[in-house]
């Protein structure tokens, strides 16, 4: 295992070392100590490596991730796993605003709560939040799945396209054009797989599904100001 002291050796060195890992690298396990809320920790990875961050991080942790598994043993600041393409990002604590924003693929697991705008403009990523999400989550979500084991804040799924939203607890309010939808067998199966992969102790039957009413797809004069 490679151990990297972020406080002593700096961010550029860390990300350069992680970027240098090839597909068949032998250095598959990395541990980052003393993150101290640093920004841009383990961003732009593109190798099947496992990175564990021992502590809390700042902005844009594990952004643009491909292939790698990044585990933050603390909380993450704004924009964690932003624009993730593939791989897995696991946050043991809470995540700040816009977690998983614009993500194209991969799995983001937040074991605590996520704040506002979780999954904003998501484009295929799967996000599983063990706790609650804040207001405007899944705003303009295009595809992928957002699973919330706790409660959702105001305006969930505002202006949503085709992403699927699953919430176990209460939804404070739904955003424009977001509606509750029927939970069909294929959704239960999808949800069971996501919950299992995210290590979430919840039953698919306890969730409700929300999605697009598809009323904003075409211009309607009633929607104009």
């Amino acid at each position, binding site marked *: 295992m490679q151990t990297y002291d972020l406080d002593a050796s700096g961010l550029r060195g860390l990300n350069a070392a992680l970027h240098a890992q090839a597909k068949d690298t032998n250095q598959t396990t990395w541990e980052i100590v003393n993150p101290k*809320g640093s920004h841009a920790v383990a961003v732009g990875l593109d190798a099947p490596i496992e990175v564990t961050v021992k502590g*809390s991080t700042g902005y844009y942790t594990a952004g643009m991730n491909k292939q790698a598994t990044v585990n933050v043993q603390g909380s993450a600041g704004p924009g964690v796993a932003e624009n993730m393409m593939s791989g897995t990002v696991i946050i043991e604590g809470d995540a700040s605003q816009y977690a998983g924003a614009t993500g194209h693929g991969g799995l983001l697991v937040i074991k605590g709560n996520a704040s506002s705008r979780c999954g904003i403009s998501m484009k295929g990523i799967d996000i599983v939040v063990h706790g609650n999400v804040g207001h405007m989550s899944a705003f303009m979500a295009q595809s992928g799945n957002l699973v919330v084991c706790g409660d959702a804040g105001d305006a969930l799924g505002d202006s949503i396209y085709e992403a699927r939203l699953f919430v176990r607890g209460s939804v404070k309010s739904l955003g424009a054009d977001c509606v509750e939808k029927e939970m069909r067998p294929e959704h239960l199966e999808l949800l069971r797989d996501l919950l299992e992969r995210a290590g979430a102790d919840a039953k698919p039957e306890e969730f409700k599904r929300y999605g697009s009413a598809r009323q904003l797809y075409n211009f309607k004069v009633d929607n104009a100001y």
Partner: protein
Amino acid sequence: MCGIVGLFLKDRALEPHLGALLTDMLITMTDRGPDSAGIAIYRADAESRSKLTIQAEDGDTAFTGLGDKIAAALGGSVTLSRNDTHAVLHVPAGQAEEARRKMRDIAPDVRVMSFGDTLEIYKEVGLPKDVAARFNIPSMSGTHGIGHTRMATESAVTTMGAHPFNTGSDQCLVHNGSLSNHNSLRRKLQREGIHIETMNDTEVGAAYLTWKMQNGATLGEALEASLDDLDGFFNFVVGTKDGFGVVRDPIACKPAVMAETDQFVAFGSEYRALVNLPGIDDAKVWEPEPATVYFWSHEETPKPNKKAA
């Protein structure tokens, strides 16, 4: 961007280190705003004294003999302790506001940064490390304090455009964000007779709170009302004589993190600002909710999530 920090001590053993802890937190936030910096620190020097923090471009001239003139006007003893471009005027207890009024006639060129019983505000153009060093903030003890480092958006980079802003006796405000209706609100407040000195948006926010409180609102009510009347982005941290309060606008795009232990409650724009506080690894860390007013006070057992009265 701007960076905000706040530290409220529960453990009196930390009080001698307040200035050093706050300075360290603020320096960590330097890259959120390098234009100007300021710190408000609450410390009681003597039971029977109130105080003003004043500032002048040319302290050699402006501060000379000023204490005696204020003493004569107030009819009590006044001492002046200079600290670089600032000075603290100690006046008889309860006469800080009166002294502030007299200052306008006696020394119109001297700016009053703060007035009250325990509050002192130090702010200047420059990096947090330089501003803290020129006033020797790290050596200051106190019960609680707030700090700000500014990236200017709405007005010029000047001493008077720096935060914190004094909003009333022993009250001050720092702001991260930008208010978009400050011009119309400034005109409205000026018609109401509120004195506003600069084109700065936060000064209007501070003046708004002052005006609300002059009309009978508590600080908590004034902050609640700000959610309706102020347009734009804001995280406010307000200092009060016995604690501090936090409020975020309903959209809450400006970052905010809080941490609490048995020893302190701390606020930072980012978690980075909090990492060197004692016992932070075991602290409860969370983000304050949007459109919710929080207060911590020395007067009673502080509780997170305690809403304004």
